[in-house]
């Protein structure tokens, strides 16, 4: 009996769009570009703030190749891309700001881009760490 009731309840609650029924917390895409090997720090510290998912990739700087030849350096970069709740963006940027001050080697840039849409409620809840939906 109980099970049946629950199923009915679920079906009722599943009518209508998620964004119409529950409070939404917008996401932003935070991109950090730093020197090689510096990316792990950001991935770890964003995790502590509560960011569910960060993605680290490899990139190159664009000092012109002539200059690079003369100096004999390859300016390799780490690119960290994470999806952050708007409320957490401030603390993430503070982490970046503090880290960039540490040394010349730790310098880099960070910026955010608005995220328009996300596919799937589960993914949205994972990214924003929404354990309980809040009704509007």
């Amino acid at each position, binding site marked *: 009996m109980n099970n049946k009731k629950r199923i009915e309840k679920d079906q009722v609650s599943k009518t209508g769009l998620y964004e119409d029924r529950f409070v939404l917390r917008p996401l932003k895409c935070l991109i950090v570009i730093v020197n090689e090997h510096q990316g792990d720090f950001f991935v770890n510290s964003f995790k502590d703030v509560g960011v569910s998912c960060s993605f680290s990739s490899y*990139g190159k*700087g664009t000092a012109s190749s002539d200059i690079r030849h003369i100096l004999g350096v390859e300016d390799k970069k780490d690119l960290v891309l994470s999806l952050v709740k708007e409320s957490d963006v401030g603390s993430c940027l503070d982490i970046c700001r503090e880290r960039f001050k540490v040394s010349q080697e730790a310098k880099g840039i*960070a910026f*955010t881009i608005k995220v328009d849409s996300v596919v799937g409620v589960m993914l949205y809840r994972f990214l924003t760490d929404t354990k309980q939906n809040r009704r509007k």
Partner: protein
Amino acid sequence: MKQEMVLIVVIVNKGYNDLVMQAARENGARGGTIVTARGTGNEETEKFYGVVIKPDKEMVLIIVDNIIKDKVLEAVGKTCGLNTKGQGIAFTLPVCDTVGLAEEDTK
């Protein structure tokens, strides 16, 4: 006044990032980052038009001021647009907050 920045993303064939950066620098951009990538063209369309799209690509990310955005885009389009050897695609995204960009000397 708060400066508004935009992110310019240019996707070009491998080896053409120097050309992109040269065009961007001439119009006031400061620096950029290159990420290597692989493209996936529509094979049927490629056959139909007889165009071969090389899969090895480079993605150039440049952050510039909103004011010079159009100039940079135009220059990049001219030097590395779709009808050139670079076969470049360029677009811009609005950037909300930035940290670590060199403070502009123009103040």
